[in-house]
Every structure is written in C-alpha cells, then in structure tokens.
C-alpha cells in the first residue's frame, strides 16, 4: 500500500508573499469581520469552511473572494456542524484552517469543538457574538457567549479565547489565534462581538516580514503524535505512515483505549495542563493605571471603548480611576486581575450580558465587583458607565 507522500509545505509560500506584498503598509477602511479575514490570510490560512450567519458572514465573503487568489480553498458548507468538521479535516490533511460564525452556529459547533480539543487539532473559530439566547436579536451585538466559549463543550477542558476591541486588533488577534493554535496544538476562539465585527475603522496592514508566524511542529516518523511530551508534535496524513485520530480516549500513539482509567486521566490532565501551565504567557491585558485610584473599571471587546471614555471623563472630573482591558478572556488572566483588584476598592465590570466575566472576577478578589450589565443590542454609552463609576 502506498502512502500519500510528503507534502511540500514551502510550495505556496511565494504566491502568498506576492499577494500579501500588495497589502502591506496600505491603510484600508474595513469592518472588523473583514480585518479578521485578512488576518487569517496573513497567518497563512489555507482553508475556510463556513455557513452564512449575521453578523459573521462578511468573514466568509472576504475568504470566498481572496482565498482562491493564494490557491487556498473556500467552501460553504450546509451547516455549522459540517463547517467545523471540514476545518478539522483540513487540518489533519496538513492545512491551516478557520471557520467563522455567530451564537447559533457556535452552539452547533460545540461537539466538534470538544473533538478538536481531544484530538489536539490546531484551528481557529471566530464567534462574532450576537444577542441570544436562540435567534435573539439576530442583527444586534452582544457578549453573551463568554461562558459558552469556556464551558460550552462537554467534559473537562481548557480553552483559549481572545477578544478584540478594534478593527486593527481583529486583524492582529486573528494572527495571534493561529499562532496560539499551532503553539499549543488546540482550537483557539476569537470571541469578537457584533459591534466590532460590523464596525468600520482604518486599519494598516503590517509589513509581511514583521508578522511572526508559528509554524506547525511536525514530528519525525517514530514520535508519538498524542503524548510523550506536554504538547506533542503533530503527525499529519501523508508522512509515510498511517495516522490514527480519534475523539475517544486514546494512548500517546493514538490507539483507542476507553477502559483504562489512567489513560483517560493522563490524557485529559495533559490537555488541560498544557493550557493551564501557559496561563501567564497567554494572559494578555492592557493596563491603564493612575496613582491613588480607588475605583477600577474592567472591560473587554467593544465594551472597553465606552469604558475607556468613562475612565477618561472621570479623571477629567478629578476622580482617579484605573482601567484593565482583558484581551485574553480564556484562560482567565487571574494574576493581572488580582493585581488590579489589589490597587482599588471596588471594580465595575461593564459587559453586554447579565454578568459573565464579572462573576469570574469575583473569584479572584474579595472586594466588591459591580456588574454594569446592558443587554438589548445597544452598546453602553460613556455616560452610562460614568454614572456608575463616579455616581450621579
């Protein structure tokens, strides 16, 4: 029986470079969705599978137009279950792959999100959050999927999720998501919100050479594809031996073993450990601290924008306020939050949900954490946050 043969991964590099060279250093006026798609193209994404859904469709639309130009492959699937399945298949065939959706589609993807965690399939899933539950306010933004991203799929697991607060950041965090996926060999979620997805801003594409990409680690024949070290190198199809990939509990060589207690314990502990142990490296925050602040505002995603406005306004009025913006939502930046909490007497957490991250913040401080929740599809105004922070 003949193998598929070795894949020449360097082959398409020239075409991609040529394509990106036309983009670099240019400034464009783009949607957050579009910027994320270009981020994926910068990150070397070969494959996109998706299904139409507001407010994420623009990502698919850019990929449909642009991926063929770099000999990539765009496919519209019949639903989100198939979309993420195709992404997983693409990765095991040797590609860098991504899908994009919104709440209802993200719900359908949960089973395969767990499959990607269990099989250590590096891929990127963008969820441009809209107002739920269910169809909710389909065209309106929300941040209601923050805990779903963390706990939506069943079983013990850890997850990586980033949250952009601008169009430029949608671009950079998509690249970072691909890099983290490769580094930790795990699915990474870009948890955007409809506000950023449909926000139009200037974005400047960086020089191609300035963008560092984490390439996939492919193991030499003979290395264990699912163990032997904390983050084992991948084996993809076509390397001269047969690869055995399963969502069932498996040994380091990939063989299924669902009856030995220790095999399951060691596997799941390692999968959780590889992300838990990298918490510090993965935790990204933006601190804006002033001397003598007693009040803190913690925000993320689109909500960080009016929050920042409220902080600036409060300071103008003589009230010293600290601000912490979370860029990484999962794993939760515990140390940064603890340190932030130590600086102030109370923390306000504006979010476009009924209090999801605020609950997580409470776990790391005994000081009062006050949710500034807003749902209904309209982002907070500066005044709404300011009113809470400095009182009426």
């Amino acid at each position, binding site marked *: 029986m003949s193998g598929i043969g070795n894949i020449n991964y360097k082959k398409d590099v020239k075409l991609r470079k040529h394509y990106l060279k036309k983009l670099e250093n240019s400034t464009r006026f783009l949607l957050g969705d579009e910027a994320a798609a270009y981020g994926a193209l910068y990150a070397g994404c070969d494959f996109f599978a998706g*299904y*139409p*859904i*507001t407010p994420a*469709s623009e990502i*698919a*639309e850019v990929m*449909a*137009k642009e991926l*063929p*130009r770099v000999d990539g492959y*765009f496919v*519209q699937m*019949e*639903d989100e279950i198939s979309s993420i399945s195709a992404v997983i298949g693409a990765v095991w065939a040797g590609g860098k792959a991504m899908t994009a959706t919104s709440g*209802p589609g993200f719900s*359908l993807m949960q089973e395969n999100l767990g499959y990607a965690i269990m099989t250590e399939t590096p891929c990127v899933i963008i969820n441009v959050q809209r107002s739920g539950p*269910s*169809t909710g306010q*389909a065209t309106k933004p929300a941040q209601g999927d923050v805990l779903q991203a963390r706990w939506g799929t069943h079983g013990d697991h850890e997850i990586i999720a980033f949250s952009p607060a601008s169009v430029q950041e949608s671009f950079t965090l998509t690249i970072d998501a691909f890099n983290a996926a490769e580094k930790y060999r795990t699915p990474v979620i870009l948890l955007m919100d409809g506000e950023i997805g449909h926000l139009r801003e200037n974005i400047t594409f960086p020089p191609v050479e300035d963008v560092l990409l984490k390439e996939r680690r492919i193991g030499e024949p003979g290395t264990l594809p699912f163990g032997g070290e904390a983050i084992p190198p991948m084996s993809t199809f076509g390397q001269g031996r047969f690869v055995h990939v399963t969502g069932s509990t498996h040994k380091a060589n990939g063989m299924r073993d669902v009856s030995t207690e220790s095999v399951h314990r060691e596997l799941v502990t390692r999968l959780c450990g590889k992300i838990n142990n990298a918490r510090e490296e993965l935790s990204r925050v933006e601190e804006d601290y002033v001397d003598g602040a007693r009040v803190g505002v913690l925000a993320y995603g689109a909500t960080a924008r009016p929050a920042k406005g409220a902080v600036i306004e409060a300071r103008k009025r003589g009230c010293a306020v600290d601000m912490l913006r979370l860029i990484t939502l999962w794993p939760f930046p515990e140390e940064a939050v603890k340190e932030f909490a130590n600086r102030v007497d109370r923390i306000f957490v504006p979010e476009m949900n009924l209090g999801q991250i605020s609950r997580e913040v409470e776990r790391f401080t005994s000081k009062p954490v006050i949710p500034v929740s807003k749902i209904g599809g309209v982002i907070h105004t500066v005044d709404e946050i300011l009113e809470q922070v400095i009182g009426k």
Partner: protein
Amino acid sequence: MISLKEMAKKEDLFVSGHEMCPGCGIPVILKIVLRTTKCPLVVSNASGCLQSASTNFPATSWKLNWIHTAVENAAGTMSGIQATYSSLKKQGKLPVDKKIKFLVIGGDGATYDSGLRSISGAMERGEDFVYLCYDNQLYACSGGQRSSATPMGAATTTSPSGNVLPGKLQPRKNISNIFAAHEIPYVAQSAPWIWQDLYKKAERAFETTGPAYLNVLNPCPSMWKAPANKSIEITKLAADTCVWPIFEIKDGTKVTVNYKPKKKLPVTLWLESQARFTHLLKVENNWIVKKIQEEVDKDWEFLISSENKNRTN
C-alpha cells in the same frame, strides 16, 4: 379548477403588515397555499426571510398557530408537535376525528442545506405533514450567500464572479427528486405564475396522509437583481426555459409533468432576465452557458422520460 373570485372569498391567514421586499414571491405563495385547507393549522417556520419579515414588531402577519425554529430545526419541531397530537388523541384528551394540519415552511437554505437531515428523518418515519419550501435559490436573509439551491453560474457573495470563477460552479441540488426517493406519497414542484396549479397541489398535499413536499420557486428581485415588477413573469420564464419544470411525483415514482411549454425557450432568456447572471453573457463564459443548457436539457428529458415510463407501465 378554482377561480380567482372563489379564492378571494376564502379567509386570508397571512395578512398585511409584513416587510417582505417589493416583488418578493413569498406572500403570493403563502396566500395561495394557506387558502387550500379549512382544517386548523400549526405552522413550524425555519429562520429566514419569511420568519423575520413577517413578524416585525409590533406586527405579525400570521392568523394561525405559528412556531419559529432555528434554521435547521423546523421539521424536527413539527415531528414533536404532530406526534403529541396523535398521542393526545389516543389518550382521549382530543377527539379522535379532530383534523389538524401540520405545515412546515422553510427557505431553500433551511431545506436543501441545514434542515435536510430533520426533513429526511420525518419523511422516513412517515409523519403526517406538509413541507413548503419557498426556493429563491440563495440565502437572502443573511445578505445573499450561495446555497445548494443556487443554480450554476449565479454570482452570490460566497460564489462571486470574477476573472477566475464565473459564479457558482455546481448545478443546483435536485431536491424534489431527493424527497421523491424517500417514496413519500406526494412531491410537487410549482411556481407563483401558475397559481391554479399551486393551489391544486397545496390542496392535494394537505389531503395526503403522510409526508407531502411542495417546492415552489420564489422570485427574489433584491438578490436576483431583477426588476420587482417582473417577478411573476420571470418565474414563468423559468418554466418556459425548463429551468424550473412544473411537475408532481406520487409515491416516489408516478411522475406527471403539469406544464409543457409549447416552445421550449433557450436558457439565455432566463439568464438575461436577472443581473446575477450578467457576467455569463460575456464571450469567455459561453462555455458555462452551454453547460447550463445541457444540464437543463438533461433534467427535462429525464423528467419527460420518467413520465412516459409511468404511462407504458
């Protein structure tokens, strides 16, 4: 055959107040289909143009029991509804002879793509429902992405036309044949221009015990980039070019072609009627027009030969 006058006398269960685009075929189709049964109706409606544009606050167009489901679940929800009514009848909580009709409605995205699984399941289980697909050949509600109902060559936002690709490369899925292959009692394809045919077919579908499927071409001026006042004419053109044949299939095999154009027109006339096909009229895209014509001819010949086969059997 019902006259317009008689039809107008019947109660309208889908009333004004909706926000469907000018020239959209959905209200026309629904006003006909919902008039064909006197029985109480339950409607399960998949997410899409109809669901969102018929229920904008503070109005609703529905004068019946209506449940909205996620895009892929309309048939599955109805499975539970109709099964429970049959159980309630057995338990004596509802009169055994109480006739209730179950209508599932979805667009082509909800039918050809994501909902296929739950429709197929309900059909295989032989459940008693009518499925109505308003087929406008793409996802209009989310901005015009291709679906597996999108015909070959059409430009959509996810099958764009450009220097490399001439729009969608694949022909549309032949969904009516797929459901006929489930050997359900009744499958029919119609269009709003031939309204008496549509009326008759909907009536038959509701009278059928077991699953019945109606596939109705729904003109979509917004996404087909066609004049809104030409909607109905365009659906007629679809029949005259044999792009959208009007037929029915009973018990999976008995095919009747209900409309045969006196003179079969070339597909170019259909392509010229909508700007989503404009790029196909360039010389370099002649090959795809030829291919579209071949596909249409092949399907039409197959349909006619299937009909003849019934006769000779």
